[in-house]
């Protein structure tokens, strides 16, 4: 396989609040290859968004990256001067956010905002920039792009706003696009369109995509590889088909069981994961998932499991793993 374009190594991002130090991201490592689509899934507060913000060094006070390296084409973003990181933001690594309405400046025309994103990284006349803005809007399939560039964000529908955000992110043809919950604020039909758009962009432009979401279905629709995060850590990682067919971490398994599926038995109730995600100021000893885990053994409460190979290209951080747990319980599914 090719050289990874992005390598995150033992990343730790913490928030220094009055109540204590929140260990939002605690030792996360992963690689992203050129043109790859990687999904990061997990509940709210599991550290997936903070991981994304850390990559672009956008974590705000009182948050700080306290450890680790983020190598983009071999250069460490963590130790890089702010000016150099700014050159990479938007140009090499771009980002789109969850709520497309609040991510667009309400008092500036959409086209102007896209032109600004272009102008941040190259010297370009305003005329040429707005021509490019029209092209970009066409590329993300905004109808009547020539007139729509002059619209304000409030004149766009939710889906169009997200398309405009994507256009802005694509303005400088980035190598990596980080999409933080890009479909969460949208209608289901529009969600599908946006995912399709992202898939096409990945295929046509070979842009690597990191998709952050809490929705397993969205991951299945777009990603080739998936990382499951829980309480600031990676608990499972692997190719999307393997994770879906054969999840090894109880948390991943529960997430999939809690998802409604068309082909499943309707009389069976959906699984809900009991309890709440742990307090990241004082996370539980041992495996962070053990208080909510129905398969836990004695060791889970004392020893922190590392990521271990559980199948071809698949890793999970669990002492038990689902393969064994289900055999023991005699459950049929999985």
């Amino acid at each position, binding site marked *: 396989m090719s050289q990874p374009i992005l390598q995150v190594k033992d990343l730790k991002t913490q928030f220094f609040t009055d109540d204590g130090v929140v260990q939002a991201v605690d030792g996360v490592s992963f690689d992203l290859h050129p043109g790859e689509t990687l999904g990061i899934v997990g509940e709210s507060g599991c550290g997936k968004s903070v991981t994304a913000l850390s990559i672009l060094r956008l974590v705000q006070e009182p948050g700080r990256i306290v450890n680790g390296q983020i190598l983009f084409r071999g250069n460490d973003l963590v130790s890089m001067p702010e000016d150099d990181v700014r050159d990479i933001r938007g140009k090499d690594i771009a980002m789109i956010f969850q*709520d497309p309405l609040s991510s667009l*400046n*309400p008092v500036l025309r959409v086209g102007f905002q896209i032109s600004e994103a272009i102008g941040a990284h190259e010297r370009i006349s305003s005329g040429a920039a707005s021509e490019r803005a029209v092209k970009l809007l066409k590329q993300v399939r905004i109808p009547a792009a020539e007139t729509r560039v002059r619209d304000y964000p409030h004149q766009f529908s939710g889906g169009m706003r997200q398309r405009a955000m994507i256009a802005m992110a694509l303005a400088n043809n980035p190598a990596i696009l980080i999409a933080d919950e890009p479909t969460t604020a949208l209608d289901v039909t529009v969600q599908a369109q946006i995912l399709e758009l992202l898939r096409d962009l990945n295929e046509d432009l070979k842009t690597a995509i990191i998709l952050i979401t809490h929705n397993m279905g969205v991951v299945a629709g777009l990603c080739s590889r998936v990382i499951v995060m829980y309480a600031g850590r990676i608990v499972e990682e692997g190719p999307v088909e393997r994770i879906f067919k054969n999840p090894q971490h109880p948390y991943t398994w529960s997430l999939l069981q809690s998802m409604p599926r068309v082909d499943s038995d309707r009389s069976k109730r959906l699984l809900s994961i009991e309890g709440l995600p742990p307090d990241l100021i004082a996370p539980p000893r041992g495996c962070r998932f053990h208080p909510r885990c129905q398969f836990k053994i004695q060791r889970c409460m004392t020893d922190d499991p590392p990521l271990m190979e559980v199948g071809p290209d698949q890793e999970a951080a669990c002492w038990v793993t689902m393969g064994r747990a289900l055999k023991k319980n005699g459950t049929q599914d999985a």
Partner: protein
Amino acid sequence: MAITAPVTAAEIEQTITREQVSLWADAWRRLRRNRLALAAFVYLALLALVAIVAIFYTPYPMAHQGVAVPYSSISSSHLLGADAQGRDILSRLMIGAQISLIVGVGTQVVVLAVGLPLGLLAGYYRGWFDSVLSFLINVFYGIPNLLVALILVVLIGRSSLGVIIFAIAITGWMDMARLVRGQTLSLREREFVEAARSTGARPSKIIFKHILPNALGPVIVQATFGVPQAILFEAFLSFLGLGVPPPAPSWGSMASDGIAAMRISPHIVLAPAIALSLTLMAFNFLGDGLRDALDPRQKR
């Protein structure tokens, strides 16, 4: 049931494209619907016109004594009568409008020039600069503005338009800085600022292109309300004899001149007093109208 004709591409185009309304055009439309604010706007436009005309033309030279019989009342040759020295009141009122507007607007220009950048910097960067600025503002808040201005004018000794503007602005910028700082503090946390940051925008771009335009509504309202305050302040200083030096006719000093003869010739006091009241009212109504028009929550 009627069968609807297939929609042509042209028709779709037509429904998709519609008038491009900017937020400012929208605000202007709402302002026009507010009768009182519109009347105030028209009055102020006329006042500004009078002030400009007065540069080139007044019925009589404003400082010439004895162009009319002292204390003479309203007549066809002196539309607003004459004062104790026989000077034409209308001519003096016109020059007075100039002074009032220069002080009012000039003060706000200084207030904006100082308060806007300081507020933006303090709100965006926070840190020690914000602490020092906020501390300074809080200390000065304890001292009445009027007192500061009075002391300043007395200290400088010689009064002029520039001194008066300076004396009013030296306390006035703090309200503006505080407002802008507050706006900036809340705007910098908005997602579109983070989005701009994620595209690699420089802090100067973020401050001036993304934060400032969003803060402009309240700033305009505040500046509009600041104008009548400054005008009143100047009139007050002139009334006390600390304003623009004679024979320049400030509305305040004109009223002060007429006080002695108020019983027999009330028009000498009334003319500047009414002009002053109308102007103050107009600015306040306009400010109110602007506040409503620029309020994003009032989408109508």
